[in-house]
């Protein structure tokens, strides 16, 4: 059956990329490259694994008229949408927090973002000029 072959291939690709994410977390030298491995690879692997689950639900709905299969497919699609929306945003927040808490990349010598004013909200609360942020951006 062609459906089973597609399901197994998707499962294989997804598991391969998830294991690559684990190996990258162990082997990469600093925070930012580990963030590449730990976020992008798990997102890509999750797309394929949950895609195979969606195919399983559609197959069980289409060939054996099981309405449980359609519910399985639709809820898995919602879980996939949740992962796709939340994973890059979390990675960006972690990278920004790591840079602002002083973690530098390995073997880095120049930091172009060092002179920029960072905390816009605290500047607004302490009464400093908000426009200093845009001036720093234009330099």
């Amino acid at each position, binding site marked *: 059956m062609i459906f089973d072959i597609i399901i197994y291939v998707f499962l294989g690709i997804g598991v391969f990329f998830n294991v690559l994410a684990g190996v990258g977390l*162990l082997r990469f030298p600093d925070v930012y490259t580990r963030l590449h491995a*730990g976020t992008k690879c798990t997102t890509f692997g999750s797309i394929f*694994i949950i895609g195979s689950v969606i195919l399983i639900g559609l197959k069980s709905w289409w060939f054996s008229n099981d309405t449980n299969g359609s519910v*399985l497919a639709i809820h898995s699609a919602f879980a996939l949408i*949740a992962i796709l929306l*939340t994973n890059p945003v979390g990675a960006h927040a972690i990278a*920004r927090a790591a840079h602002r808490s002083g973690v530098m990349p390995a073997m880095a010598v120049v930091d172009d973002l060092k002179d920029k004013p960072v*905390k816009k909200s605290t500047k607004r609360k302490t009464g400093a000029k908000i426009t200093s942020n845009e001036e720093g951006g234009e330099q």
Partner: protein
Amino acid sequence: MIEIFNQYMIVLIALLLCVIMSIVRVIFGPTIPDRVVGIDTINTIVIVGMVIFGAAYQEVIYIDVAIVYALLSFISTLFIAKYLEGGDF
């Protein structure tokens, strides 16, 4: 039911291996953002494992749990990142 269980146990064991490698990074991470990256990776893999488990047993309630877990882990990751930045909320 039985052959589906056997198919998905291989996938779940591979995901468990990946979780163990992430736990090693969480334990031995030199800085705090390393540990946060490890926790984030573990959260995503646990979501995928819950979806696979729901497909293996044909139970939709596991996948609902996975959706709620995804949103809650996203909020916790954002909160830890905001704490690491310093400053006030």
